[in-house]
Every structure is written in structure tokens, then in C-alpha cells.
């Protein structure tokens, strides 16, 4: 790749964001933009640096991350297990699937008043909301992944003597895996959305607490740090899920480098 091409491909996409940052910085410095609306970018960086140095940021990220992870494990785990169960066993599908499909049409965030009544505003409410948010994409994609496994492959495997656990391990589960991983990525997205909302309602710690606290004192720079933190964590989760796909689906044509033989 020539230097010119590198310039085009790597630098060109950065021009617009840099331009926006510059205009933003200049307009806050000149006083056209009140720092109550938007603090200057440098102030955001300074606030972030202070939060890092005081250790507050790390503590809050840890708390929020733990909540997200717990919700993911509980909701995602349940979704995976139930999706596998209904996908694999007809009686369970008949008994459970239509009910779950019905409940899934309720937006998770619409249940907040009820959740507050049930759990109050402590940790279990947040766990419940996040778990509920992750559960449905995980369930639906697992269920569909299993249903969509190529019948021809199953027939082939049976005629080659595979049955029971070997059939699940070698054919059905790997066949459903791409769909399950799509469910995981959707679930991760919803995990952060529900966590942000849950932490904004009420929290004594975490990123949501940090931003809501800063709002009380009009510290718009810290509010922005919080927003950027959520964005960063969301991105990190997505990158992790993507690399998981790259490892687990390395057989998939979409993940293979180089031309076909």
C-alpha cells in the first residue's frame, strides 16, 4: 500500500471528528457555547484524568461492569439453556415457546415501575432488568439457531452412526453456534442499554451514579465522561464478542482470509 493510500484509508475518516472537536473547542473557548451546555473537550479530558487519578473512575467502572456481567450471566445463561431446551425437545417447545414469544414483545424498560415495586431500587432490581434485557435475544437466537440447523447434515450424521450426545456435540450445537453468537452480540447491546437506564433511576455507585451525581452539581464535564465511558465499555464488549466469533467460527467462510482453493 502506498503512502497516499494509507493517508486516504486511515486518515480521511478521522478528518470529520477532528474538525468537530476543533469547532467545539473553539466555540466553548470563545464563550459562544456555555460550559453548562457542553464543556470544552479539554475539560472533559481533564475531568477524566482526575477521576482516573482519584481512583473513582475505576471503582465505578468495576461496579457497573460487575452488574452488567452478572445480568449477562444470569439472563444470557437462562436464555441459552431455555433456547437449547425448546429447540431440542418438542414437548418443551410446545409448552414454553409461545409464552416466551408473547412476553418478549413487552419492552424491558416498560417493566421498570413494576420492577421498582417488586425489588425496590437496590441491586436486585438492576440485576433483574439487565438479565431480562439479555435473556430474550439470547433465547430467540439460540432457539432459531437450533431449528435452522441443516436437516441434511443431521440426516447424514445419523446415517453415519451418530446419535445422542455425539449428534448434539458434533452437529447440532456447532450448527447453531453462529446464531447463538448473534444472540450474544444483541444481548450485549441490550445489556448496556438496560444497565444505563437502571443506574440512572437510582444508584449509590457505578457510572450511572457518577453521572447523576455530577448532574446535580452541573458538572457537565463529568457527565460527558460518564457517557463516553458507557460508549467505550459498549465498544469493548462488542470487540470481545467479535473476537469470540473469530475464534469459534473460524471455519465459517465469512471469517476466512484468502481466496478459495
Amino acid at each position, binding site marked *: 500500500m502506498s503512502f497516499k493510500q494509507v493517508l486516504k484509508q486511515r486518515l480521511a475518516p478521522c478528518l470529520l471528528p477532528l474538525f468537530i472537536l476543533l469547532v467545539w473547542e473553539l466555540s466553548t473557548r470563545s464563550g459562544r457555547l456555555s460550559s453548562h451546555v457542553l464543556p470544552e473537550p479539554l475539560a472533559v479530558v481533564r475531568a477524566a484524568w482526575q477521576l482516573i487519578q482519584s481512583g473513582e473512575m475505576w471503582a465505578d467502572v468495576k461496579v457497573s461492569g460487575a452488574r452488567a456481567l452478572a445480568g449477562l450471566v444470569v439472563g444470557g445463561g437462562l436464555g441459552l439453556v431455555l433456547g437449547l431446551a425448546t429447540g431440542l425437545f418438542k414437548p418443551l417447545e410446545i409448552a414454553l415457546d409461545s409464552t416466551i414469544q408473547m412476553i418478549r414483545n413487552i419492552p424491558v424498560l416498560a417493566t421498570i415501575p413494576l420492577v421498582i415495586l417488586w425489588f425496590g431500587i437496590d441491586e436486585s432490581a438492576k440485576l433483574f432488568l439487565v438479565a431480562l434485557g439479555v435473556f430474550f435475544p439470547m433465547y430467540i437466537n439460540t432457539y432459531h439457531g437450533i431449528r435452522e440447523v441443516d436437516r*441434511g447434515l443431521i440426516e447424514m*450424521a445419523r446415517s453415519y452412526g451418530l446419535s445422542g450426545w455425539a449428534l448434539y456435540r458434533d452437529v447440532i450445537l456447532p450448527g447453531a453456534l453462529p446464531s447463538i453468537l448473534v444472540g450474544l452480540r444483541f444481548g450485549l447491546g441490550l445489556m448496556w442499554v438496560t444497565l444505563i437506564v437502571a443506574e440512572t433511576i437510582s444508584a449509590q455507585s457505578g457510572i450511572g451514579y457518577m453521572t447523576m451525581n455530577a448532574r446535580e452539581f452541573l458538572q457537565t464535564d463529568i457527565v460527558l465522561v460518564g457517557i463516553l465511558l458507557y460508549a467505550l465499555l459498549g465498544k469493548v464488549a462488542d470487540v470481545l464478542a467479535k473476537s469470540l466469533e473469530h475464534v469459534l467460527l473460524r471455519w465459517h467462510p465469512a471469517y476466512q482470509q484468502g481466496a478459495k*482453493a
Partner: protein
Amino acid sequence: MSVIAWSSSFSPIAGLDLESELRQQLDCAADTGTERRLGLAPPGDVDAALRLNGIGKRYGTREVLSDFNMQIERGSFVAIVGRSGCGKSTLLRLLAGLERADAGTLQTVGRDGDLHTRIMFQDARLLPWKSVLQNVMLGLPRRPAAQSLARARAVLDEVGLSERANDWPAQLSGGQRQRVALARALVHQPELLLLDEPLGALDALTRIEMHALIERLWREHGFTAVLVTHDVHEAVALGDRVVLIEAGRIALDQAVTLARPRTRDTAAFAALEGRVLQRVLHGEASGQGTN
């Protein structure tokens, strides 16, 4: 090398009613063409790997196979041709045990009890998440692993793909995938290999290569082969016997006595191919009545 046994008159093994038996005999009597020259061979004379008696199969109200009778000699190569929907693939799926017959009996005779059968499908049906070698090892005993591994490698070498052992199926061409599928079937050392139009999707050159490969492996391993195809040329090139199925019945049972390996540009080959093709295209008009 083959002895053709088209027999309808031997004693019913189970549940063959008198009426259908009679009808069959009438069919046979009306149908004493040259193709059926061995039709009178008594059943006991042939070392048959498969005996089909009065097999019937219907999907809903559509009768795919009716009162179907055939014997397949052990070690022979039988090519089954016919138009789409004539029941040839259904027949193969019955032989593979993927479907159950609604009527009649299907008797398989293995050297020691069960007839060890493997099928090769139209699409290779390789597991995309397993490497080529792992695909070949599918269904082999996991222990001792070294032994299974060695066998899989040996068979992969036989189909000429040992260098691709660690590739994913998605990285192979269509012909290579079918070769892996062939290796996967052969690693089980089947007595009966069923081929369900395995070359249908391949280009002409690859197909000719595959013909040679299949023929060579068939000679080396000595299994019984049943090939379903709609390509009459392929059937004549490979079969000891070309069986034409029409409307769920055998319409032609043609012995192919050309020497192997077969050269395709001889007059005898062309004549035979032309004859079968004529029969496929024009049905009873050019052949003799089948009632």
C-alpha cells in the same frame, strides 16, 4: 463380471400377496425383451447383497414406487437412471434405511449379518465446522484415536487429498468436497456404497476424474455400489448394469459388458448409451411394452 438377476417369481419372504405376485409374473411375461435376458435366473443362484420384493412407497396419495423387485449382486456396480421424480432417489433412500417402505420386503445380506452401508449425497454434506480430516473421521470410534486417525489419513490419501487434511470444507472446490465425502464413506469399509447423484453439481472435467476415482476405489475395495444418476453417459461408464426406472418400476435392465476401464469413444459405448437414452426419452414407444 456381473450377473443380472431380475427376478419376480421367487417365493415371497414376507407379506407379498398373491395378487401382486401374479401381476408381476404377467408383467414379466409381457416383457421378455433382450434386456431381461437374465430375468429367469432362479434367486438362489446369485450372491445377492440386496433383495427387494414387492417394495412400495407412497408419499401421501402419490405412489413413488410400486411393487418394485430387484436383486443386486454382491460386488457389482449398478447404475440407476431415470427422469426426475421417477422414484430413483427414493429407492436409494430406502436402501440406505433413511426411509421405510410401505409394502414389500427389503432383504440385505451382509457377509457377517448386517450389510454395512454408507451413502454419499448429492451435496457433499461435510460438516463445515470440522476440518477435512475430522470430517473423514466422523462416526469412527474415538478410541483408539491413533488408529482412527491413521485410517482416515490413509483413505484421504487414496482420494488424493492428504495435503488438505487440515483445511476447512469451505476452502475446497466442489469436486474436492465430494472426494472428501467419498473418503468419509470409504473409511467405514462399507459393503454397500450408495451414491445419490454425487457428481450432479460438478463440471464435466471434474466429473470424468471422479468417475475414474470411483471406479478405481470400487475395484480396489470390492464393495457393492449403487449409483443413482440422471446422466446416462455416467451410468454406462460406471455400471455393470444400467437400470432404468419409470413411474416407480423397472423399465429397462441393461447389462453393460464393456471392458474396464472403459473408453468412452468406442462404438459399442456409444451404441449402448444411445439405446438407453432413447429408452429414457421416448419411453415405451421405442422399447417394448411394459404393460
